[in-house]
């Protein structure tokens, strides 16, 4: 403080009043001007370490004995836990065709092992806290840099190693070693290359198309039997997969894209977009079951309110209004599958979905015709 005042005094005395606002003295170029601020003197001093307070175990030998007893009792308890875990393995075996025995087995062995570990931990901490010396002390940090002698010795060791191995001298040895080390990870790159989807189907095209195409019958999940329009009674909800899904090479991938929910409403309840009037059949509508938010299966259908609820993030879709989003984080309506009826009365798809199903992806905008 005294220095600060001194410096300011010197500056104000030697220069005009205006320059007091920017008092940069030659000797204190780094110090910042206090301006018009009032600098309070630093009244706080380093309080130092608070006085040492002895613990009850330091003062009372009885308490100390008790703490000791607690610690060794815990160690013995841990021992008992270990023995119990071994006994439980034999005492509560996992029996075939008895699921409940797994539960008992896991529970008992788990109790034994956790008792064994927990008791050791608690005992060790209690030992350290109650019985070991606990004087406060300061452990000063030492500089990170080593002494000149140590550093010189380190350089010496490197030099010696270089000389003895001949790494600097025998350049052929060194270069072949570098070559071998560089080549070593190459097999891994070739192996893990298979994880990269780029050499398979174009992901944009894979995400934009499903198994549905003109004439593919709508079939029941999981049996794969075709559905007649007459079987879909009012209020029904059918879980639908495309015909021939079972034979497809990538069954799960295809099902994850092509899953459809089929519902029948009264035709007068449907508020259809003009160009989609031909997409339904007598009140039967088919919508993608894959949520446009993050792709959960949306199948919680309420047959009176005609709401479809996604169980993951509570997006709600209104089936009467071409599945527009009425609540939740989904950004787009569920894609509708255009359906028709074939000569035998079975429901068929008129085409694939006219937009990519499921959640957004970077290139989606360019493939979305809508």
């Amino acid at each position, binding site marked *: 403080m005294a220095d600060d005042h001194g410096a300011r005094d010197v500056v104000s005395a030697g220069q005009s009043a205006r320059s007091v606002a920017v008092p940069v003295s030659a000797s204190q170029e780094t110090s910042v001007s206090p301006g018009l601020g009032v600098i309070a003197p630093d009244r706080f001093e380093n309080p130092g370490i608070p006085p040492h307070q002895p*613990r*009850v175990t330091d003062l009372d030998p009885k308490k100390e004995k008790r703490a000791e007893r607690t610690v060794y009792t815990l160690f013995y308890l841990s021992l008992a836990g270990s023995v119990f875990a071994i006994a439980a393995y034999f005492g509560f075996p996992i029996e075939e065709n008895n*699921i409940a025995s797994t539960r008992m087995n896991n529970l008992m062995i788990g109790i034994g092992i956790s008792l064994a570990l927990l008791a050791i931990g608690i005992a060790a901490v209690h030992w350290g806290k109650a019985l070991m010396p606990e004087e406060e002390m300061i452990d000063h940090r030492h500089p990170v840099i080593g002494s000149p002698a140590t550093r010189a010795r380190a350089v010496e060791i490197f030099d010696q190693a270089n000389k003895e191995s001949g790494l600097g001298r025998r350049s052929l040895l060194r270069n072949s070693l570098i070559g071998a080390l560089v080549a070593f990870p190459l097999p891994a790159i070739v192996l893990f290359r298979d994880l990269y989807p780029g050499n398979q189907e174009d992901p944009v095209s894979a995400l934009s198309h499903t198994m549905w195409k003109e004439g593919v019958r709508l079939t029941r999940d999981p049996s794969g039997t075709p559905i007649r329009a007459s*079987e879909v009674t*009012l209020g*029904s909800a059918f879980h639908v997969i495309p015909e021939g899904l079972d034979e497809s090479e990538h069954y799960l991938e295809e099902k994850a894209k092509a899953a459809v929910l089929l519902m029948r409403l009264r035709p007068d309840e449907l508020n259809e977009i003009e160009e989609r009037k031909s997409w339904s059949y007598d009140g039967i509508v088919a919508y993608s079951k894959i949520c446009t938010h993050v792709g959960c*299966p949306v199948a919680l259908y*309420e047959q009176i309110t005609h*709401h479809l609820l996604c*169980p993951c993030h509570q997006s709600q879709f209104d089936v009467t209004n071409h599945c527009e989003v009425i609540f939740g984080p989904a950004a787009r309506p569920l894609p509708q599958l255009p359906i028709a009826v074939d000569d035998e009365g079975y429901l068929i798809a008129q085409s694939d979905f006219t937009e990519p199903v499921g959640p957004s992806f970077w290139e989606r905008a360019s493939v979305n015709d809508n």
Partner: protein
Amino acid sequence: MSNATKRKNRAGRRSPLATVALLAIGLLSTGGAYALISGGTAEAQSDINSQQMIDEGEKLFSANCASCHGLNLEGSESGPSLIGVGAASVDFQVGTGRMPLAQQGPQGEEKPEQFTDEQTKALAAYVASLGPGPGLPDPRYLDGEGDAANGSELFRINCAMCHNVAGAGGALTEGKYAPAIDATPAHIYEAMVIGPQNMPVFNDANLSPEDKRDIITYLEFNRESPSPGGYVLGSLGPVAEGLFAWFFGLGAIVAIAVWLTAKSN
């Protein structure tokens, strides 16, 4: 041999066991006859097409249901028309206590049933007599002796998204919910056929009666088999389990951290 003969003679013409045998025969025949007769009457009662049942049902309907559903089932502003809902619908709604409604709300809730089984059947008979609809389920689909594995797959595809994979129920939109499935096999079967309230219909063309039997079998199997993974916390899945881990797991970690850093006194 001679000892046995002596004992026989001492007891006279009748064996000492004769009284017991006679009593047993008497009790068995009385009980058997009663079972036959009562079984017969039960069958007669469940014949829900008898005129007597229909008349009984009409009285009950006029007194308890007509204020909302209309004297001729035509419905009103407070309740839908019941023409063509069938006996299955009445048995489900009344048999599980959902009807009569306690109050208007997002959905009719399960509560202790207000009518005896016989009265419920009478109501069903009356409603069924005024318009064809789904009838009461055939008992052979309710025995729980179907294929639980097939039932499990069908349940997961058609039911689990609302009712939870363990049948523990779940939330729907705007205060509605799919209830936990703890109903009788008949009520489960009827619910699939009629699609009560907001539940979609699963008619016999979608899930055949055998499929429904398999689903009931799976539900009963699931109800009876103990959980291998410990306490199920209501089978509600990640919500209940996450909450438990949040409070008890994190709570324990916080408590241990406090204890570790506290000074010994």
